[in-house]
């Protein structure tokens, strides 16, 4: 019974995704064809799933952060730091489990740092995470000592980025597993509800017994962990850690994916499934633009247009208008509510 509800709630996203995929198929006729070579699935569709892995992973953490009315600008920089850590650990002879543990630990620490600034010092999330966004790439350069650390001779780490398991590419498996875990944890327990409560009114939820500090810390820590996984995948994919370009502007893509997925930037409600669809929409757009032979720069204008449309749809003003359209009687209530929302 759960599936139909998800489909109904996410109809706009599904339609957009279907339209973009259909357009891609028109541009490149072989888009939907998937074939198996060397026990591995190949095809443009698989490529979308594979290339979309970093943004998808970031979007999972970002969704939870945005649901608490926060934002995490540092995820791109955290990807760069974690990539640098993973590359330097594996090249100095540590085993794969030790490298992965170290990389994830560093991501966790970055997330906890952000969480501490937001939850304990009460700093606005944009600003708190801006610090790591600015300093993060410098730290990553410090770790790689200013060069691109390559690890061409470490097949075990490269496997994370380009290997395959059950004939699916590893990044796809990783993000699907993490997504399912995240959805189960937040939706099969009260955690998701508590996160939304903090997003609606942190003070009220604290007063009603929600330990908002711990939950905020945890949410930013999860975002850091997701960024860490994305960073390892990105580094393993190019067989090296590029402190300057790893994850560059991906925080913006992740935020966009979350917003496209129907999570409100004003906090208080979220949909992980929607964010995953948002990430896939962005990735199919990227792939489509490349397939069509347009310069990749078109991406930015299309993204700007998408944001604008979503803003208009999500804005309290047009929501009021819509409610007005549906039932005149409800208008007053919605208006006061949206006003209160705006005043907060």
């Amino acid at each position, binding site marked *: 019974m759960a599936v139909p509800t998800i489909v109904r709630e996410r109809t706009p996203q599904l339609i957009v995704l279907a339209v973009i995929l259909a357009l891609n198929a028109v541009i490149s006729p072989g888009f939907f064809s998937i074939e198996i070579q060397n026990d591995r699935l190949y095809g443009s569709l698989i490529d979308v799933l594979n290339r979309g892995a970093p943004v998808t992973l970031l979007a999972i953490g970002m969704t939870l952060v945005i649901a608490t009315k926060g*934002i995490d600008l540092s995820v791109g920089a955290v990807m760069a730091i974690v990539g640098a850590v993973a590359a330097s650990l594996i090249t100095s002879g540590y085993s794969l489990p030790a490298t992965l543990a170290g990389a994830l630990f560093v991501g966790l620490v970055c997330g906890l740092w952000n969480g501490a*600034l937001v939850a304990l*010092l*009460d*700093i*606005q999330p*944009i*600003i*708190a995470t*801006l*610090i*790591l*966004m*600015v*300093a*993060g*790439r*410098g*730290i990553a*350069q*410090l770790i790689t000592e*200013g060069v691109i650390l390559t690890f061409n001779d470490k097949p075990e780490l490269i496997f994370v980025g380009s290997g395959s398991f059950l004939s699916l590419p590893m990044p796809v498996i990783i993000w699907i597993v993490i997504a399912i875990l995240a959805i189960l944890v937040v939706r099969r327990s009260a955690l998701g509800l508590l996160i939304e409560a903090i997003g609606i009114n942190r003070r009220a939820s604290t007063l009603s017994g929600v330990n908002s500090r711990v939950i905020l810390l945890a949410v930013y820590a999860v975002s850091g962990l997701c960024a860490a996984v994305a960073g390892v995948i990105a580094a393993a994919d190019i067989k090296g850690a590029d*402190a300057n370009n790893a994850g560059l502007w991906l925080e*913006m893509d992740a*935020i966009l994916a979350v*917003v496209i997925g129907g999570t409100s*930037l*004003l906090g208080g409600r979220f949909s992980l499934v929607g964010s995953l669809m948002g990430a896939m929409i962005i990735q199919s757009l990227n792939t489509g633009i490349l397939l069509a032979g347009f*310069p990749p*720069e*078109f*991406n*930015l*204008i*299309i*993204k*700007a247009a998408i*944001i*604008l449309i979503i*803003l*208009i749809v*999500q*804005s*309290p*003003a*047009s929501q009021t208008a819509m409610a007005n359209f549906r039932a005149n009687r409800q208008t007053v209530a919605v208006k006061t509510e*949206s006003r209160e929302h*705006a*005043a907060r």
Partner: protein
Amino acid sequence: MKNSKYLPLMATFVVFVLAYIICISVFPNMLSTRVAGNLLTDNAFLGITAVGMTFVILSGGIDLSVGSVIAFTGVFLSVILRDTSIHPLVAFVMVLALTTAFGAAMGGVIFFLDMPPFIVTLAGMFLARGISYLLTTDSVPITHPFYSTLQDIYFVMPGGGRLTLIAIVMLVVFAVGIILAQRTRFGTYVYALGGNLTSAQLMGVPVAKTTIGIYALSGFLAGLSGIVFSLYTSAGYSLAAVGVELDAIAAVVIGGTLLTGGYGFVAGTFLGICIQGLIQTYIVFDGTLSSWWTKIVIGLLLFGFIALQRGLMWMSERSARNMRHASAAQPSNA
């Protein structure tokens, strides 16, 4: 309360003086008008856009689009000067009108759709960058003779340092910005918006006009900054000025402006720019440090100043609570 208002500004000033003393004690050559002149010239474009950012942040908003607008301005100018015979001054007016309208449009969306400035200006950032890509993806040199005329204007300061035209433009923008913030009705409205939106509305502040005006001002200054940047580099490039918005925000915060809006000074932003410039100059003088140390030091400074602001707010909240307790206790005493 008056003292705590100026405390972040004082802290910035002390940090600047200390940083300069450290720099001079390591490299005595840094105490010269040549270094000062270069510092002002190199950071002129950043300073101009940071003034606009100060107004935006004072009003409780944020403008992520400025870096892209600077790039757009450069590309627009270089393409127009290459393909048409329009005089640069006319092109300046055209591009300033465009960027001001762009800022005003973002302000309009922020106010009328009631959406967070962060996401609206993020869309603006994508849009401006995308349009400059569409104009050209190459770095287009500007060879108009008027440009070399402008670049050759400078005053020689005592000690041989050159105060270039673009440095003068930045100083003028700061002066006008300080007057605009402290001595005009618009400035008062900006502070009122950042202090408390609802109270500002109830007091009769024209919120729509002011919001649009703030972002239009930021767009205008980003355009001016783009002109200065094109004079500085003699070229237009769509990948230029990436991340300038972050440097500008950092300068504003290091300058002691409260990120929640309502408190801060344009003059503080000037100090913030000077501190960033000092760090860069130090790294250049040292020669062995990599440029990414700039990022780390700026990150540390950001953290330091934000923590200081939080501390001040806690203190003022606590003293406010104490005063309330005191006044609540008074009747029973009497």
